[in-house]
């Protein structure tokens, strides 16, 4: 089976994408790539024949097909960035919730704010309800 240049390029692009996502990502690079892709989109709108020309060079029939493939990659890339951001927010939320939980116990050990022997049922004021 002989491979079209377009297939090789697309597969390479996907592999590079995966490599980037799991190893090299930074917020700055994400944004630079994003701007690059958006610029590319704008250029394709301004010069519609450009996409067809490039498509033909790599063995894809129509410019629209090339744009479609690039859009799929762009979408995946965008998605990964968002998922990553959400995970970061979840980590922050977890840390914050934990800090509040530990710092403001509903019922602390006898020495307020510190873990200690909580077997004592006597003499501890606070939320004790019998």
């Amino acid at each position, binding site marked *: 089976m002989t491979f079209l240049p377009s297939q090789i390029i697309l597969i390479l692009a996907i592999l590079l994408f995966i490599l980037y*996502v*799991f190893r090299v990502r930074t917020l700055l690079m994400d944004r630079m790539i994003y701007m690059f892709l958006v610029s590319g989109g704008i250029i394709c709108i301004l010069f519609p024949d450009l996409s067809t020309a490039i498509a033909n060079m790599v063995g894809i029939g129509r410019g629209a097909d090339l744009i479609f493939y690039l859009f799929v990659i762009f979408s995946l890339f965008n998605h*990964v960035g968002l*998922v*990553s951001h959400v*995970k*970061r927010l*979840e*980590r922050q*939320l*977890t840390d914050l*919730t*934990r800090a*509040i*939980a*530990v710092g403001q*116990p*509903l*019922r*602390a*050990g006898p020495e307020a704010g*510190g*873990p*200690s*022997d*909580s*077997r*004592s*049922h006597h003499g*501890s004021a606070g*939320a*004790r*309800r*019998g």
Partner: protein
Amino acid sequence: MGSTETWVVVPAYNEGPVIKAVLYQLVELGYNVVVVDDGSSDDTALQAASTGVVVLQHACNLGQGAAIQTGIAYALRSPDTRYIVTFDSDGQHSAQEIERLIEPLRAGQADVILGSRFRHPGGVVNITPQKRLLLKLATLFTRLTTGLQVTDTHNGLRAFSAAAAARITIQQNRMAHASEILAKIAEQKLRYAEVPITVTYTAYSVAKGQAMVNSINIVWDMMTGKLR
């Protein structure tokens, strides 16, 4: 039994009806207990506080893994803490069996002791065949991916030395924490051992328990765990 060196962490979510009874088992045996109420919508936290134990509350529901980690973080603040036990709040575990898990830690034979309901006959009461099969499959999967020779991979009754607990640091907030703990034991080459324990499925705990399809969520969480 029971001194400032052992902390029993009890994560709880909407266990108002049963948590007092569960906690009294522990309190009567003299254990230090920290209950972490994971954003319950019922009176779990107040019920727990009425037994005299330490009660922490999550302002929002994060998941059992997060609740356990909060309890561990609390226990580790004290330099006297040497052993940390995780214990379910739904009544499936037996407080009498905790000592069985701590003994080997005290003797220095392991860093983590995992309770197993499948090491001996009669370890499980009232389990459905489907659940048993699912747990067996999960065990097989864990053995293949981590290399750990365990018989029960999703058991909430475990004991850690303080040092081991500090090294594991649970990051999976939801139910994948059980898999994460095993993965980290393997990665960090902690010494582990299994001890037979009993798990009793009551109508209450079965109604509240995880649906078996939640295993899909666990696998998903584990796979996406590396994405930061």
